[in-house]
């Protein structure tokens, strides 16, 4: 096992941090603990994957850290901003200006062209996009020839590339991906993951991605494992094999215990 303690890597700046984060649904006997005092940090210019079996709370963790969902107790900070005290309006602003999203279902507006979809967050904010940055991003995802197309005229892989470009275009502090390759074939999936890794390595972006695919997780710098709402382990510089092995062990442990 290549588990390393978090303490050894505090040198880099933290982009987002959850401390003692709990999320509880329902009350009394029907109470379900989705997140149980989770503490985790996502460092700048790092590509983190969150893994775990179904119902482990990995999506909930991402939603809470990304300001999409509320939490029961603990604290979440994006940069210097504490999310727990923000009203809906402020949270919306924060998501708009500081966070980028990539969803499993491509989630593009069918009435807008590819380019319009990419600049949508900036249009909402009423800001002019940074032309050079925009060109860089579009070049990177290889969409230059298809900017005038509507989502229905693009393949699934191309649609997800538009979504990646949209997340990158506004230069957010952090990008969250919820199973971004879940609906793609392996080749398109590899392309999208490649773009995400490049954005971290070359552009210094911070990316956090929820996935259940060991191959996808292998693109990350670090994998955080979740089970039953708790962080159970962490792996630096993972490969598909090491992740798969860990999962197998973990599953076996779960069954015998």
């Amino acid at each position, binding site marked *: 096992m290549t588990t390393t303690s978090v303490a050894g890597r505090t040198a880099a700046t933290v982009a987002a941090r959850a401390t003692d984060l709990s999320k509880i649904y329902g009350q009394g006997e029907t109470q379900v603990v989705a997140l149980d005092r989770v503490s985790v940090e996502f460092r700048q210019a790092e590509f983190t994957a969150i893994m775990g079996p179904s119902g482990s709370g990995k999506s909930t963790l991402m*939603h809470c850290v990304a300001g*999409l*969902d509320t939490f029961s107790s603990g604290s979440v900070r994006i940069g210097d901003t504490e999310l727990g005290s923000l009203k*809906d*309006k402020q949270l*919306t*602003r924060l*998501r*708009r*200006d500081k966070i*980028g*999203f990539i*969803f499993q*279902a491509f*989630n593009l*507006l*069918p*009435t*807008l062209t590819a380019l319009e979809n990419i600049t*949508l*967050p900036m*249009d*909402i*904010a*009423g800001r002019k996009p940074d032309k050079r940055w925009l060109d860089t991003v579009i070049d990177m995802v290889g969409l230059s020839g298809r900017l005038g197309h509507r989502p229905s005229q693009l393949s699934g892989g191309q649609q997800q590339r538009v979504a990646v470009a*949209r997340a990158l275009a506004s230069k957010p502090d952090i990008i969250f991906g*919820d199973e971004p390759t879940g*609906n793609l074939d392996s080749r398109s999936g590899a392309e999208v993951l490649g773009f995400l890794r490049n954005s971290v390595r070359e552009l210094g972006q911070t990316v956090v991605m929820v996935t259940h695919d060991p191959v996808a997780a292998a693109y990350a710098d670090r994998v955080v494992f979740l089970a039953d709402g708790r962080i159970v382990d962490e792996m630096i510089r993972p490969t598909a094999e090491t992740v798969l092995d860990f999962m197998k062990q973990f599953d076996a442990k779960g069954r015998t215990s």
Partner: protein
Amino acid sequence: MFRTALRNVLAHKARLLMTVLAVMLGVAFVSGTLVFTNSLSTALQNSSAKGFDQVDVAVRPEGREDKGDTVGKTPELTQALLDRSARVPGAASAFGVVRGFTALADKDGKLVGGGFQSEGGNYWGTKDPRYPLVSGHAPSGRGEVLIDSETAKRAGYKVGDRVRMSVDGPVLTPTVTGVFTTDDGNVAAGGSLTLFDTATAQQLFGKPGTYDEIDVTAAAGTSQTALKAALDRALPKDTVETTTGKQLADDQAEIIASSMSGLKQGLLVFAGIALFVGTFIIANTFTMLVAQRTKELALLRAVGASRRQVTRSVLVEAFVVGAVAGVAGLVAGIGIGAGLKALMGTLGATVPDGPLVVSPGTVATALVVGVVVTMLAAWLPGRRAAKIPPVAAMSSVHAKATTKSLVLRNTIGALFSAAGVAVVLAATSMDGSDGQAPMGFGAVLLIIGVFVLTPLLSRPLIAAAAPVLRAFGVSGRLARQNSVRNPRRTAATASALMIGLTLITGMTVMAGSLQTSIDKMASAAIRADYVVSMANGNELSPDVERTLRKTDGVTLTSPLRNAPSRIDGQTEYLTGVNGAAIGRLTDLTVEEGSFTVGGDRVVVDDETAKSHGWTAGSHFTVHYEDGKAQQLTVAGVYRGNDMIHGIMLDTARLAPHQRDAADMQVMVKTADGASGAVKDRLEKALGSNPAIRVQDKKDISNEIAKMFTLMLNMLYGLLAMAVIVAVLGVINTLAMSVFERSQEIGMLRAIGLERTGIKRMVRLESLVISLFGGVLGIGLGVFFGWAAGELLGTRMPTYELVLPWGRMAAFLLLAAVVGVLAALWPARRAARLNMLQAIKSE
């Protein structure tokens, strides 16, 4: 399969609710229209119905036709005839009926039951079976009257009160000696009935010693027909005619039915339109429903359901929805009908009182519309559902609502529209009544054409709004794109509003133009300061003119007195005027000769002159109603209009040949011109009579306006219903759209669009669709108003198109309000959407 379909209906409560709502709206619109129109027509019908319980045989004078050079005279029903009728074998009793106009003032001096008939009659003897007394006793002499209980209640009168009233001019102030009940429909509808003793009634109504009708009741064991036969034998055949009570009731029913048929047809057209719009709402909803369920239906196919079973399951669902919604819609429709009636009452529109009528026909129509229309509307989407390939169950992609090409639809729409425009334009060049049928046909074609074309029209028209929407940033841009995203749905939503506004705008344009032209005609020809007339259009006693002439400040007066005569074997009505004053009281264009009235010199309007071949200086012989003949000379020919026309001669000439002189109007010119003080003085001089109207030119205009306002109010009542349906239709469509786009909305929220931005987006979409419908409707309405005016113009020289800009702006504003109101709930729903669920849902 049946169980699956049923489960389906119940499984998706929100979806079910929306579908039921859509069908309910259609049904509510139709049944509301039916309830409203039925109630209105029944009330009108009752208002002219009279009971014939106390009449077995009615004896009436037989009218004589004008023949040769004599004016036909109506024979009199004398006391002798009454006595003879009473003695006929088989007759139990006979009583005479005297009727006339009687205006009654309330405590503030205003006419009671204004707008409806104010009637007077006679109370027979000391106990009249027709009018059971609630309190008091029979009247006697000019100082005593009876009033009906409804009027007593309305005006707050009781036995012993003194009331002001008038029959033909002078004011009477009798004491109420009793209050009676009656089944007279006129009273039930809001009119008043005042009774005098028989001799007084005969005097007041100008028929001393005679009756309008003799009602005979049969002795026990004598049939109506036997009594009629006996009366026919006993009474002079050439002066009276007898009718059985049953025949009277039948005749009356027939007359009422035929007079109502026009109104009923007009209102049914509205119900038909309601049905048309309703069907589209329903079909629209089911199309969306099937599109949303593509996956589910494909799954059924994949596990082995046949096409027919899928279609049937959709139809079963439609049946259940239709039945539930039909009942709910009927209830809502009754509510709408009742609400409309109440609304019109409070808005001051005079509608006759009456109970709410829910006929079996209405109930049946509501249910049939609910079930049959829903199933028909679901049939096409159902077939489309059956064609969904089983493999669609595996696909994760949303099925497109409809991607079928609009080419065929546009072609059909263009053909219909072009044909409609061509036919309407052709009709405008036709003459008057000849053009009516083609114009109506063309209008229907054009409306259908535009209806079919709305999806095509939506793009350019909504694009025109883009610059305004751009001001609203991303929300505005998204709203514009969303509104043209599914042109069929946008079109179906907008057309509900379009059709209502087309009718209303068309009618408003026509009514406004007509009003202006009639107004122009009426006031342009009058130079008098005041025109005095009876409130109900009856005749005034000549005393009125005499009184006015003596009033302070009055310089000129002239009556307009009607008298029948025979000229060249034709009946012509002569107008008796004050020859010395009439030239200065009217302002008529003289086409020939001079406007001189006096002695044997008369003036004639252009049309009468033409029909007799007269020119200035022609001579003709007139035979008065008393049979005397006289030669008159045409001094001048003037251009007549709807208000003033005919042969005018001096009253001095006419008076000796008339039995009772009666004036239609009296024209008055005063030294100081029209003013409030002068009007007060004139009214006071006439004894502040509730029955007499003193009107200046403005009052006359207002009165003409009132006539049109009444008509428009009825139409606006129906518009209100169209608006309600439009609002609900837009809500339904928007709610469905929000439901369909919940994933997009969730994504927009996630990437940073605030709740207010989402709300604004939905609201703007609603506004754009509503305004689109409004612009189309108003445009079509103006076209139809113009076309109908062209047709009318051929018969009315002063007709000119008047565009009611203010009203049109109000209608457009109304469309905008509809849009904003309709978006309230869907926008809230969209803004409140749970973003995480929305993003995940596929």
